[in-house]
């Protein structure tokens, strides 16, 4: 029986969240949480592995107490257990402290895992770093942006599309994959599954239970700091070209040759000079 760990994250449900212009922080309290879409694919991939070769699936997340919801959802969808890493000291983590905390929790609480599945990226952070960093922390092979996976013995054959090539790779287990995937369509929560999920216990660990020093987790341990978050301003202006057709075309190219060149894939400036 394989032991699979699926890392999931609760993200804000709306794409355009109001943010505080003074601090540059998102006003997360105004949003409802949901399971990060790519994590749904990771979970569904785990289910497909379980259907083929049998597996126990643990869903793990680091987050505030409200993140319990995505673990319940994971159980409702079919995960066997949910683990919540929750501590005020873990708040404000960057991708490094997130992956090192996850690594520590997996090492100490699920040491005999075979495969870790993560979503390829999250819809809020979009860094796509946590999965690969987690593989690094645990010193196991990791492949990102995986579309499909097949497990035979202690080897996993993974497939991904990269730069329009189809890559097939083999890796030894235990390993980690981040799932990109449209190969498995995520299922919906069934009503019986939902009821069962709320009858289950969620295991919660704080920093002390994981033996983590407050210096090394959350915002305190994070080597990166967010200096500023802002929406880029797009200034638009209307330009009306007048004159004869020839003159209009001439001024069109002199005003926009960079952009037109970009679209048709030609360096118009150099061409002009060459002539």
């Amino acid at each position, binding site marked *: 029986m394989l032991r699979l760990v699926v890392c999931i994250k609760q993200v804000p449900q709306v794409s355009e969240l109001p943010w505080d212009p003074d601090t540059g922080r998102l006003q997360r309290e105004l949003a409802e949480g949901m399971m990060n879409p790519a994590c749904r694919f990771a979970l569904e991939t785990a289910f497909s592995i379980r259907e083929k070769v049998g597996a126990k699936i643990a869903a793990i997340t680091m987050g505030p107490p409200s993140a319990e919801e995505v673990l319940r959802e994971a159980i409702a969808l079919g995960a066997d257990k949910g683990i919540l890493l929750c501590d005020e000291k873990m708040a404000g983590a960057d991708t490094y402290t997130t992956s090192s905390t996850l690594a520590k929790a997996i090492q100490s609480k699920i040491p005999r895992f075979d495969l870790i599945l993560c979503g390829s990226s999250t819809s809020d952070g979009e860094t796509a770093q946590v999965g690969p960093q987690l593989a690094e922390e645990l010193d196991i092979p990791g492949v990102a942006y995986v579309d499909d996976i097949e497990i035979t013995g202690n080897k996993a054959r993974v497939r991904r599309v990269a730069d329009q090539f189809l890559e097939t790779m083999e890796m030894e287990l235990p390993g980690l994959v981040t799932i990109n995937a449209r190969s498995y369509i995520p299922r919906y929560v069934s009503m019986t599954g939902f*009821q069962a999920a709320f009858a289950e216990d969620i295991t919660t660990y704080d920093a002390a239970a994981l033996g983590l020093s407050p210096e090394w987790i959350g915002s305190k341990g994070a080597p990166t700091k967010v200096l500023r978050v802002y929406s880029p301003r797009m200034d638009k202006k209307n330009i009306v070209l007048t004159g004869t057709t020839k003159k209009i075309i001439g001024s069109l190219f002199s005003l926009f040759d960079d952009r037109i060149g970009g679209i048709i894939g030609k360096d118009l400036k150099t061409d002009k000079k060459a002539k």
Partner: protein
Amino acid sequence: MDYNPSLKSKSLRKAVRMFAEAEIGPIAHDIDRDAVFPWDVVVKMKSLNFFGLQAPKTFGGAEMDSLSYAIVIEEISRVSAALGLCLTVHNSLAVYPILRYGTDEQKKRFLPDMVKGEKIGTLCMTETSVGSDAAGVETHAGQEAGAYVLNGTKIFITNGLVCGTALVFATTDYQNPRKGSVLFIVERDTPGFIVGEKEDLCGMRANPIATIFLENCHVPEKNMIGHPGDGIRLCLKTMDAGRIGLAALATGIAQAAFEASLRYAKDRKQFQKPLSSFQTIQNYLADMATDIDAGRLLLYRACEALDSGRPFAGEAAMAKLYCSAMAMRIADKAVQIHGGYGYSKEYDVERYFRDAKATEILEGTSEIQRIVISRAVLSQRA
């Protein structure tokens, strides 16, 4: 008293909404326009246990409490009231009475298929001359060795065309129909159980509401729920619980109409300003939001009363009365806010308007709800 929805309630709403918006949303408009029952989606709903919402786990159900049940019906109805109606009639008026009043043998025989949705349920009460005066039932149940022979016509039967198991209300006694009232479980393939044409109704058009003819339909005695004479009491008790589903359905329609109005009021510009900047429209939206909240609170109170085992008939009737009238008010305002577009079949608010009206009529008209409420009120000490 906690007015904040629990994590469980919030999650359930999200989970059902995700399914409803993704799977029913894209077809909700078309199935109403074309008056078709969306089997493709219903098949998915079956596998997600929407047909066994409150049935016990032993029968494969989700064993939900009434509050959860109301949330599910609300969310499905918010997207398609016709499908919400299919679910509430199946779960509340067909599965529930068998579960609550049926024998163990009947439960084992009928519930597994119904809970799986393999057999969609319905309750046949209304007749051409018998509406609110249910006890005046004219469908006759004649006795014959070990069986009853049903003859009569049932109209406006929700899920009629697609039902697999129907509860049929009849009487053994023409002279005193109340005294001889009986309730049977009848399988669709029983000879003499004839499903007629789909009714051409104003709203709820995607629900295959139909007439059902009973022509010398032989039903074994063991299919009777309760005893001869119990029929009317069992039907009325079933209706008491069914009102929660109906109130939830109405609330779902109202919610959809309100959200459409909110979106439209923010988008639509007249006199160079969005509609939402005009005080009249602001007042409409404020009234709508208040009205929906009031209805929802009445509904959830009725759910709580039912789940805690207290008398709930008055509360459920209040919720049904209020929520159905509220849905009508909200849909009316929604059409008004949308103006000419609201009156157009191209927009969904006109569907909400037609669907909302049904909730004031079916499963006990608003007039009947007032009788039920007045009984509860008058039983109090003055």
